[in-house]
């Protein structure tokens, strides 16, 4: 369970990297498409296969709305079994941050400035995922020895 927790936490961190990479690929593909003389409007946007990099938007959307929240929920369930000091709270924090991230992503379509927070919160998701993964990194004894300070920090 401990290693499952660790793998899931790092998986979320890796997903954040994929998300950043995918959206950058998509945006650069989009600007090249426009530079080449094409026009994007709602009709072309809804068509899908328009330019190199459009897959980045699709990956970002599916990952962000479905895959990452699912991993975060599984991590939270696993955290109850993993006996990692503070593990439940870190997993819970990760779920909360992911929920915030999805919400920001959805509402940024109407209020683009929320997209700026979406970008910042992505780093928070990444950082918390890495911390959670590191807490599950070592054996039970060593983890127990670090418990008190870490828990104080959280509380």
């Amino acid at each position, binding site marked *: 369970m401990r290693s499952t927790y660790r793998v899931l936490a790092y998986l979320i961190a890796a997903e954040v990297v994929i998300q950043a990479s995918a959206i950058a690929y998509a945006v650069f593909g989009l600007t090249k498409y426009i530079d080449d003389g094409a026009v994007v*409007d709602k009709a*072309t*946007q*809804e068509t899908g296969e*328009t330019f190199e990099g459009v897959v980045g938007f699709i990956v970002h959307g599916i990952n962000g709305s*479905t895959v990452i929240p699912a991993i975060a929920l599984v991590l939270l369930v696993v955290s109850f079994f993993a006996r990692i000091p503070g593990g439940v709270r870190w997993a819970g924090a990760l779920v909360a941050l992911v929920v915030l991230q999805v919400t920001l992503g959805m509402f940024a*379509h109407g209020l683009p400035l929320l997209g700026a927070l979406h970008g910042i919160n992505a780093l928070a998701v990444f950082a918390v995922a890495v911390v959670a993964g590191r807490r599950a990194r070592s054996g039970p004894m060593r983890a127990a020895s670090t418990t008190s300070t870490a828990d104080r920090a959280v509380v």
Partner: protein
Amino acid sequence: MRAPRWLTSHRRWLAICLAAAIVVWPLGYFWASSLLPSSYSVTDMGYPDYGGGSRGGDQQGEMAGMAGMHRMPGMPSTPEMSSVSRSVETLTVGTDRPADVLVTLTARKQVFTLAGGRSVDGYTLNGTSPGPEIRALQGQLLEVRLINESVPDGITVHWHGLDVPNADDGVAGVTQNSVPVGGEFVYRFLLSQAGTYWYHSHQVSHEQVVGGLLGALVISPAAPAAAAADPGAVVDEIALAHIYDGRRTINGRDDDVPIQAPPGARVRVRIINTDNGAMLAWVAGAPFTLVAVDGTDLNEPGRLTDRAVQVTAGGRADLEIVQPADGSIVRVVLGGSNSLLLGSGGAPAGPVPAVGAAPEILDPLSYGAPAPLGLNPDAPDRSFDYSIGRRPGFVGGVPGLWWTINGHLFPDVPMFVVADGDVVRMRISNDSGEVHPMHLHGHHAVVVSRNGVPATGSPWWVDSLTVADGESYDIAFRADNPGIWMDHCHNLPHATQGLVAHLMYEGVTEPFLVGADTGNQPE
């Protein structure tokens, strides 16, 4: 912090198992109940919504028993209705008179060459995509023989915007069975509405329409007054916009389309948006008039400069331009990417106007002058809500963020029940985070208000209506075309994601089935 002692005992495991069951059991329940039967009738979907009107006697109990389709998987619909019940199949044109216009459409799945020269792997009708332009006169009877030569999933043809008899509406599994390879189907209907329309497959439509199984259909008035007075001065052009492989085309061409139009000529450009999102159209080099929306002429539309017209996905807009007397070229911009260039002669007269940025979008709510509607939207027989939202859940066993209708996920969506002759009012509201081009089959509805602001312009009759996120439209229509009609999002992938409901007339029965085992998959 040390774990409490009880957590270390066997009670901890009990608590964990209990907690897991509390999480997993509802998830499993929602998953299982979202699974679609391999064959079902659309009339068994969801729950009936009578909109405050009559419940149609025996039908009420019958429908109530069907609420929640998952409880009766795979049951064909054979409601025992009163003696007036009619099957969808019987709702035809009702005349044996010979057709005035005969068309044969042969569908193929193939690699083909667009008019502009680009090669596309998709679908053709009579070897081309877009398919042949069908032009006819108001009052004529059109007969179309549809032959499926090689489209493996089967095909149908839906006459988008034409309020045809239900049996000719061309929706697989709702008004007919899809036409398999080697099969054929004959559509026959009267062309009572003059205007700009289009046709497209309504079987696996999110693929087949995108892939090119579509074409333009234009019905001219039987005796067009202006044309009769001065036929040489009228230019009538179709501009069918379709995106093939990510690039927009007009009538199959990637580049700008030159149109012969002498100085002083009145040019009617019939814009058809066959794609999944709205397209802006504007004119550079001359003022223009938006003379018709979705096939219906507007009343006293004013001249426009510095305005763009938003053409809804699936919708049409007819622009009229009077060519400048000095012979200069007029550019009709479609989506910013493509244009029609209106001018005379081989050599361009003067410079071609630039595309420019899209001007402010015209609001049809206050454009033109009011006119009698022929119905009173303030005294409806039925009032419905079609409220679009979005939430996490399962549709067809697949987890995701899915569209909801009145808070329910597909297929547990309302069935809007009406009686023949009812005046129906519907509030379409959207809080789903994305825009939805809503399309009601078989009827034209008039826009009454948007976000509570009443319409003050020309009657704005639509069959396809862009409802943006946060918007709410009140529309009204007369239920005068009995049948079972789709009422869905024309961003076709959204329809596959469950943004589909139906309008059903009392006493109409559904002989067709949809689902994996039926070969009918209208979305």
